């Protein structure tokens, strides 16, 4: 009688435990779900509120890197460049901390799921982190600090080539191109030429997979510098490859002022979860949850930089959306293999728990089902694409604006970049961040 009571009590306890555990874990949201409100605030053109919402929804210790990255991007949108750099530098240090292989996380990933791994940044995150820091330093007028960031990018690119040697994204052409522009800005054309060459090679290599061709502005930069350094053979090769007969004369170029407009458009793709559950012959329920990128509609199809006298088209220079999707595709086989290994471990855990008590087995099954979530963490506050417009103008004051156009070439938004006083042989970097049709640009400019 006593034994029967004890059994009934222990099964009841285990059942309650299972229900509570299930209820508790079903309340756990994925990172993507946690970020939905933050993203909505950004879409409304309010990065400050997005920051508050991000702070109100702190992730676990494993989400520290992705939280800092998103924080850094939001602070930049809010025009807080120094704070943005602090957050991004903290993210850089946090990545270094979680980069080594973790024994507990490896074990955890085989029992709990992919979210047991601390987020250590996707390969393109680690480059973009420094790129955005360089943007911040340029906005702060600290070109030498921006130079430090492009040297750090160079180091990171060297590691990328080793770590991602089989990936379509083993080079980052935009990072090389921007490095070259900053070197030119600092009066180091020899370094710029090296960076431009690498950028051109990387664009050629990736154009088929990523759909971004060598920007015409880069072609002209290469031809101009080849001329300036007397590299006739190289210039002839490029002239033939690019089919260009006309490029800026180096002497004339020095007499003009140069404007580089970089616009980040849209938001990086959202990671979602797709899961499949099956019941085996012993009544155990197993599920496999894998991440995928939700398709987003591309609102902006072209951008025009307009001055009082002329207008030029901005060219796409970096497709973060495409890079993220390709990297996830390349990772899919590993994710599936780990999910299958996890199924075996979870089956063993359920069986062991069942041997103790059938209700404990049920509790363990509910736990494994609820805990096994796909890793939907991503640096979602990045733009989907970067566009660049390069223009050389006579020294003096110039008032510029950006015109964002939709698929049928209709105007979506206009953003005034203000009137800028330009001096000869100087580079002026202007950044814009377009989020949605409703909001347009979220960039805060002084005096506007």
């Amino acid at each position: 009688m006593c034994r029967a009571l004890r059994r009934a009590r222990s099964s009841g306890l285990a059942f309650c435990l299972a229900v509570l555990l299930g209820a508790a874990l079903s309340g756990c949201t994925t990172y993507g779900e946690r970020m939905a409100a933050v993203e909505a605030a950004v879409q409304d053109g309010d990065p400050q509120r997005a920051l508050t919402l991000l702070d109100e929804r702190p992730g676990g210790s494993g989400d520290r890197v992705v939280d800092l990255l998103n924080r850094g991007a939001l602070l930049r949108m809010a025009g807080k460049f120094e704070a943005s750099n602090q957050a991004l530098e903290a993210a850089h240090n946090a990545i270094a901390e979680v980069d080594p292989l973790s024994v507990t996380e490896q074990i955890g990933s085989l029992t709990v799921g992919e979210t047991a791994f601390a987020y250590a940044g996707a390969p393109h995150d680690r480059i973009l982190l420094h790129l955005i820091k360089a943007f911040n330093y340029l906005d702060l007028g600290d070109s030498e600090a921006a130079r430090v960031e492009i040297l750090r990018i160079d180091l990171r690119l060297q590691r990328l080539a080793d770590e991602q040697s089989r990936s379509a994204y083993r080079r980052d052409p935009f990072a090389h191109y921007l490095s070259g522009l900053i070197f030119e800005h600092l009066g180091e054309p020899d370094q710029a030429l090296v960076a431009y060459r690498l950028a051109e090679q990387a664009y050629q290599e990736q154009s088929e997979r990523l759909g971004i061709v060598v920007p015409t502005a880069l072609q002209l930069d290469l031809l101009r510098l080849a001329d300036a350094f007397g590299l006739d053979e190289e210039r002839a090769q490029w002239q033939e490859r690019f089919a260009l007969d006309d490029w800026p004369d180096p002497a004339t170029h020095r007499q003009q002022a140069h404007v580089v407009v970089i616009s980040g458009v849209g938001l990086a793709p959202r990671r979602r979860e797709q899961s499949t559950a099956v019941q085996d012959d012993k009544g155990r329920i197993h599920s496999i949850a894998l991440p995928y990128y939700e398709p987003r509609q591309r609102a902006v199809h072209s951008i025009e930089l307009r001055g009082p006298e002329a207008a030029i088209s901005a060219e796409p220079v970096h497709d973060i959306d495409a890079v993220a999707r390709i990297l996830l595709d390349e990772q899919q086989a590993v994710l599936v293999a780990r999910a299958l290994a996890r199924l075996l471990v979870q089956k063993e855990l359920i069986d062991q728990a069942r041997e103790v008590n059938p209700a404990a087995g049920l509790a363990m099954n509910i736990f494994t089902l609820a805990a096994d979530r796909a890793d939907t963490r991503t640096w979602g506050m990045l733009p989907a694409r970067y566009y660049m417009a390069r223009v050389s103008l006579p020294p003096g004051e110039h008032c510029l604006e950006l015109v964002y156009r939709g698929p049928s070439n209709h105007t979506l938004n206009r953003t005034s970049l203000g009137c800028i006083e330009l001096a000869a042989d100087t580079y002026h970097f202007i950044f814009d961040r377009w989020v949605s049709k409703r909001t347009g640009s979220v960039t805060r400019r002084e005096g506007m």
Partner: protein
Amino acid sequence: MSRSQSNNRRADLSSPPLTAAPRLWSQVAAIVLIAALLAACGHSVKRIDRDAEHDLSGRWNDLDSRLVAEEMVADALDRAWLRDFQRQHGERPTVIVGSVRNLSHEHINTRTFVNDIQRELINSGRVDFVADARQREQIREERRDQDLHASAESRKAMGEELGADFMLLGSINSIIDQEGRRQVRYYQVDMELISLADNRKVWIGNKEIRKLIRSASVRP
């Protein structure tokens, strides 16, 4: 289910499950123990000696800055330009520190390095030192204020500043070689002392630091 099977099952339940349960609970206990050990590695603060070598990350640090400044100033003060100047003018040269450009791969606070150099030069007692451009502006502002508000006896006149004879300029460069989790960081600090009278470079100093960094490949 037969009676004998039912009895066997009851016997299994009545006695503690000796095979499966200890396995499961020992795994749980091991995880709890690991977690407790990791949690024990808490935050602590300890004051350390200024000269103690603590190179945590392998990046440029306060000790690098101070040692380079000491060695470079010692080298600069031991060269012919100082003796030549004293022989020609019969007084100590006046030096000003210009900019030290950071051309390295990391954000280095060059102001602390410039301050280290200034301190070493002033404390040597062999050169006079004048304020840099930003400090001079502040001091001139104070003199303008004195012109209006200070008594005639205590007022300091404009146009009595001590002009520098030499300017110290420099740069910090780095080369980084990396392979897997190993990295060699090479820093080269170049300093030049330039005569303000005729742009002559009277001294060029150079100090190199090389560090081998091995990053952990595994963590708990």
